[in-house]
C-alpha cells in the first residue's frame, strides 16, 4: 500500500518536472499531496498516534483542496496557461529528474527507508522547478513540492512533539500563501508573472 503511494508520488513528480501547462502541473501536485496525506494517515492508523492523523488531515485539506483551488482561480484570472520559454527545456528536465532520483536512491541504497529517498528526490525536483522555470506561479509550485518533501522527510525521521510539527507545516503553508499574494501584486505591477522582467536590480 505504502509502496504504491510512494510510486504515485515519484511518478507525479517526474510528470510535473516536464510539462508546460500549469493546469497539468497543478493536477500532478494534487495527486502527489493526496498520496502523501494518505501515507501519513496510514502511518497514524498503524501506530495509533494522533500526531499523524492531524498532519495527514492538514496536508489533505490544504494541499489537495485549498491551494489547488487558489492556483486554478488565479490561473484563470491572470490568463496564463503555459510556460512559454523554459530555462531548462522539458526533455532535459526529465533527464535531470531521473538523475536526481537515481542519486537519491543510489546514495542511500543501504537504508531501508523509502520515505527518506523519496523525500530527497522531491527536494531535487522542487528546486529544479524553482530555478528552471520563469513563471512565478510555477516557482511557487516548486516550493510546494519541496515542502511535500519536507513532510515525507519529517515522518520518516521525526520524534518531535505535535506543536513543533504543526509549526513547521503551518509556516510552509503561510509561505505559500504569501507567495500567492505576492504573485498577485507582481501581476498588477508588471502586467505579467514572468520573472524575466526582474532585471531592474543590478549593480
Amino acid at each position: 500500500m505504502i509502496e504504491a503511494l510512494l510510486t504515485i508520488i515519484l511518478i507525479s513528480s517526474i510528470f510535473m518536472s516536464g510539462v508546460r501547462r500549469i493546469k497539468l502541473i497543478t493536477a500532478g501536485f494534487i495527486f502527489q499531496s493526496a498520496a502523501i496525506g494518505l501515507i501519513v494517515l496510514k502511518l497514524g492508523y498503524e501506530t495509533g498516534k494522533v500526531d499523524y492523523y492531524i498532519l495527514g488531515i492538514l496536508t489533505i485539506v490544504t494541499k489537495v483542496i485549498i491551494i489547488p483551488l487558489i492556483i486554478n482561480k488565479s490561473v484563470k484570472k491572470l490568463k496564463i496557461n503555459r510556460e512559454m520559454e523554459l530555462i531548462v527545456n522539458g526533455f532535459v528536465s526529465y533527464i535531470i529528474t531521473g538523475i536526481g532520483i537515481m542519486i537519491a536512491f543510489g546514495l542511500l541504497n543501504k537504508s531501508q527507508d523509502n520515505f527518506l529517498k523519496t523525500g530527497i528526490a522531491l527536494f531535487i525536483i522542487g528546486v529544479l522547478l524553482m530555478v528552471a522555470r520563469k513563471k512565478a506561479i510555477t516557482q511557487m509550485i516548486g516550493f510546494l513540492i519541496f515542502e511535500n518533501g519536507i513532510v515525507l522527510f519529517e515522518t520518516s525521521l521525526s520524534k518531535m512533539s505535535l506543536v513543533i510539527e504543526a509549526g513547521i507545516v503551518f509556516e510552509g503553508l503561510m509561505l505559500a500563501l504569501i507567495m500567492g499574494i505576492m504573485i498577485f501584486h507582481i501581476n498588477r505591477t508588471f502586467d505579467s508573472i514572468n520573472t524575466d522582467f526582474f532585471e531592474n536590480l543590478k549593480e
Partner: protein
Amino acid sequence: MYIIVLGILFLFMIVTPLILKNLKITGFVTIFGAVLVLGIVFKIITLVSGGNPLSYFNEFFYIDSLSVVQLLITASINIIVSIYSYKYIGNEIKEKIISNRRGKFYYFLFNFFVLFMMFIALTNNIVAMWIGLEGTTLTTAFLIGFNINKNSLESAWKYIIICSIGIGIGLIGILIFVNAYSNQDGSDVLKWSHLVKNSNPQSTYAIKIAFTLIFVGIGTKAGLAPMHTWLPDAHSEAPSPVSAMMSGVLLNLALYVILRFYIITKHIPGLQNTKWLFIIFGCVSLIISSFSILRQLNYKRMLAFSSVENMGIIALGLGVGSRIAVFGALLHSLVHAFGKSMLFLTAGNILSAYKTKRIDKINSLIKTMPINAVFLILGMLVITGAPPFPAFFSEYYIIVGTVETGNYIITALYSFCLLLVFAGFLRVFIKIVFNTEPGVKYAKMEVDKENTLPLALCFVSIIIMSLFMNGYLSNMINNAVSIICD
C-alpha cells in the same frame, strides 16, 4: 514569569494596530512596549550575570549569557527603530505614499518580526529556533515589498525564493542532526541544553553532513558570501527602518542559530574541522563584499554589502576560536548592530529628503543637512573600525586571534579587506558630504532636524558601550565566550 510578561506585551503590541484606527497611538504603544521589553531584558541580564542559566516551561525556554547578548541587541535596536518608525510612517502618510491601512499593516508585521526574533534568542528547542527563523522570513517578505513597486517586488520575490530554499535545506540538516541522536531519550533530544552536555551521537558522519547542510542553509539567511545574493537587493529596497532591523539584528540571529549547532558539534571528537566552514565562508564574504563596496553606485546597496562584510568578520572570529577572537566576534556583533542601524537610519533620512539612492546625485551634505552629515561620518567611523570606537577593538581582537593561532595568510587577507572597505567608505562618504559642484548654491534643508533622535540614541549607546567595556559588558561577553570555548 518574565517569558509570560514578554508574551503578553507582544500580544498587546501586535493586536493594537489591528483594532485601533489611530496610527499615532499605535506608534506610541509600540515605542512604550519596546521600552518595557528592554526593561525586562535588563532584568534578565542581571539574573543571568552570575553565569547561571535560567530555564522556563520544562526547559523550552533557556537563557544563558550567549542568548542574553542577542536579547540585548534585539531589544535595544527595537526601541531605536520603533522611535524612528513613528515619524517615518507619519511622514509617508502625510506625503500620500502609503495609506493609513498600510501603516497599520506595517506596525502589525514589524511587531511580529520582533516577536519572532526574541523567540529565536529565548528558545532552547533546536527546531523551534528554525521555526523562529522561518517566521522572520514570513514577516519580512511583505516588509521588503512594502512600497509595492517594481524594484521592491523584485527584491521581495528574490528574497522569498532564495531564503525559503536556504531555510528548507537548513531544516533538512536539522532533521538529520536530530536523527543522529536517536540513541537518546525522545523528549530531551530536541533540547540544546541537553545535547550540549550529552554529545555522543550514533554516527559522527551524519552529524558532519547535517552541520554542513545547516551551515549552508541558515548561512543563506545570515548573508554569508556565496549565498548572499538576495541581501543587497532586499536591504536596499526595504524601508530604511526595516533594513536597519534586518541588517543589525536578523543576520546576527541567523548566525547565532548556526553557532548553537556549532557548540554542540565542537564537543564531538573528530569534528574539529567544522571550524574551517566558518573561516572559509567568512573570508569569502570579506573578499566579495570588500570588492563590491568599491564599485557601488547606490549608497543603500553599499551599506548592505558592508553587512555581508561584517557578517564575514564575525564568522571569521568565531571560526578562529581562540578566546580573544571569539570575544572580538561577539563584541563586533553588538557594535555592528548599533553602527549599521545608525547608518541605515541616516540613509533613510537622506533618501526621504533627496528621493534618490544614487551616490552621484548627492553633494555637499554638510551644507544641506548638517546634522545628518555628522551622523553619517560618525557612523562610517564606527562601522569601519576607527580607533576610539569599540569596533576598532573588536576587529583588533580578531587579528590578534588569527596571529595567536598561526593563520598568517588569513591575517593578511583580513587586514587587506578591511583596508579596502575603509577606502571604499571614505571615497563615497567624503564625496557625499563635502563635494561641491561649481556654480551650484547649497541651501540648508528644513527636513534635516526631523527624526534625528534615534540616530543620537544609537551614537550614545555606542559611547556607553565603549565606556563600560571593562565592566559589565566585558563580563557579560566573557561569560558568553566561555559557553562557546569551553
